[in-house]
């Protein structure tokens, strides 16, 4: 059966056997990784499965002559983003197992499957009806013009045709950094006063910044006060009030 598919794949294109095998393996890796992300109870396992998927995708990028992107994918996505995920997982101490079987929201699971299935089938049906790809060729510059390397071509496109988008994303990154700093900032004066006040009667006054792994005063009620204290004195206040 597999042989038949492989032969069909070879015959429908000018691909060689190694291409087919590469594709098949990478596809398998991707799907396994994706399923791992979705079905792992432990978030760390999910993160590692995500890395698997990203590597598979990178392989497929190389397979399609997008070498630069493949490398960037590995470095940025697998190397930075997933690492960031893992940092946060560890910081928040949520590496405990989540109860996968239970679903508190009624009808969420069946509906999710059904709707996504409809969307998937619909997308594929449309693609098939439109002969898989429509659109003009080589609008923004060819991928294989003049034997130049992929990096050269991509760089040329980014720095000329898509220059504005490039600058905008640069600004976006700056904004993201500033935002991240603001989010992570801890309040300065108020917190110190609060700490001094509550120091006498509260041993854990300064422990607000600790990871949430320590058991608290059962403070797991509504989110009312937290979002408004985004960058502010939530922990100490919480302490003082409780």
């Amino acid at each position, binding site marked *: 059966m597999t042989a038949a598919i492989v032969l069909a794949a070879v015959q429908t294109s000018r*691909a*060689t056997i190694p291409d087919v095998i590469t*594709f098949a393996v990478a596809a398998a890796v*991707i799907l396994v990784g994706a399923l791992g992300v979705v079905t792992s109870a432990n978030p760390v396992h999910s993160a590692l499965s995500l890395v698997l998927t990203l590597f598979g995708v990178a392989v497929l990028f190389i397979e*399609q002559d997008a070498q630069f992107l493949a490398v960037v994918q590995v470095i940025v*996505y697998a190397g930075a983003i997933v690492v960031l995920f893992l940092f946060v997982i560890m910081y928040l101490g949520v590496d405990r197992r989540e109860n996968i079987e239970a679903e508190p929201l009624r009808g969420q699971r069946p509906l999710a499957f059904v709707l996504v299935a409809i969307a998937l089938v619909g997308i594929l049906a449309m693609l098939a009806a439109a002969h*898989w790809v429509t659109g003009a060729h080589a609008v923004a510059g060819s991928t294989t013009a003049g034997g130049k390397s992929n990096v050269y071509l*991509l760089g040329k496109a980014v720095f000329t045709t898509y220059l504005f988008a490039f600058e905008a994303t640069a600004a976006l990154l700056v904004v993201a950094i500033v935002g991240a700093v603001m989010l992570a900032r801890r309040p300065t004066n108020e917190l110190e006063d609060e700490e001094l006040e509550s120091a006498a009667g509260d041993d854990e006054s300064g422990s607000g910044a600790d990871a949430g792994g320590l058991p608290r005063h059962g403070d797991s009620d509504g989110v009312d006060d937290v979002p408004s204290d985004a960058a502010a004195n939530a922990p100490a206040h919480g302490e003082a009030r409780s």
Partner: protein
Amino acid sequence: MSINGDWYLILAAALFAIGAVGLLVRRNVLVMFMCIELMLNAANLTFVTFSRMLGDIGGQAVVFFVLVVAAAEVVIGLGIVVTIFRRRVSTTADDLHVLKG
């Protein structure tokens, strides 16, 4: 030369579907984020495939930018997650239901 681009598109669609289902079904906020990343990767794969099939470098440029934006998004998103769930025991999305009508 690789195999027909159609297969890549099917694969990307499947990856996207898996990511969508994961987003809807999982309760852990970080896992939901990872499912979002899956969906973005599916989109990237699709773009690169079209880039190859149409012979257009524009697809790869878009992937370039999607990558950057995804990174920025993750940074901020995780920052928010950290801020919300800093003092909490668990990070389920179901804990945030104050806007219940």
